[in-house]
């Protein structure tokens, strides 16, 4: 899956996802990617977020919507992402997932749930101070 958030010069925010889902899923299964608020969410008064991981778990918590709401309440993007992961952790400690968050002042961040085989999450960023996209990573919590 890829989840993307784009914020223009004026703060206009758009988001999107596209995925072929889980390997060997039951025929007809749909993940979180096409669900607004789950796979991604955008609000030009705040920013946007996108989630990736185990869609069957993550879609139950609307992580992208929740991240945007945390940012609306004043959290910086990294903190909003961490809060979303912590919120899911309380119910499903060993879920596989990560979230990226960005706000309309240009701030961004990410968070992920730490598992033995998943300790860091890599994501891509491109902003106006760069001449090419940069790969960044966060340590999972």
């Amino acid at each position, binding site marked *: 899956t*890829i989840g993307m958030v784009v914020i*223009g010069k004026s703060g206009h925010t758009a988001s*999107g*996802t596209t995925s072929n889902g889980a390997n060997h899923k039951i025929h007809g299964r749909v993940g979180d990617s096409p669900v607004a608020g789950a796979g991604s969410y955008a609000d030009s008064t705040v920013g946007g977020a996108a989630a990736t991981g185990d869609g069957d778990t993550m879609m139950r918590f609307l992580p992208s919507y929740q991240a945007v709401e945390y940012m609306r309440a004043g959290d910086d993007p990294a903190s909003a992402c961490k809060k979303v992961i912590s919120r899911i952790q309380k119910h499903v400690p060993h879920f596989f997932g990560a979230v990226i968050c960005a706000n309309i002042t240009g701030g961004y961040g990410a968070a992920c749930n730490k598992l033995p085989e998943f300790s860091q999450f890599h994501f891509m960023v491109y902003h106006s101070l760069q001449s090419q996209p940069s790969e960044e990573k966060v340590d999972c919590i």
Partner: protein
Amino acid sequence: APPLPLVINTWPFGNATRAAWSKLQAGGSELDAVESGCSLCEAQQCDGSVGFGGHPDELGETTLDAMIMDGTTMEVGAVAGLRRIKNAIGVARKVMEHTRHTLLVGESATQFAEAMGFPNEDLSTNHSLSVYSEWLRQNCQPNFWKNVIPDASKSCGPYKPARGLVQRKGPATGKINIHSHD
């Protein structure tokens, strides 16, 4: 924080990031940028988890899910379980721009896509067919069933519901990982 604009995406899919940025620089809208970045990922089958030829289901078919959202108008277009259409994010954009709906699914979404001019194509590849064959050879392991007979941890289906809740396992965390995710 750096000055806007900003493109950020999950996973190290740099070509998608670059495509979205290029679209913005060329005067495209934020929606155009998202569509462009995600479309490229579909065409390039980013790490096998995006686009055609990846992650076949239990019948060996690859289906696609996609969604696009405008944070100013709060309009959303989405498709789920899209069959035989490669450009899922493009179809999602058409749902947003040419319907009053939010989400179209399955074969009906395919019919909508065809009406919007998208070609009907087989999403299988030699790789996805090989992955599917190997899964069958391994007695359909892993899978996402529970509380069924025959025992899904050992056997392929077809399955029927088992009497009572003999298994109460949580989400299938062992089957979703960095190689197989949403």
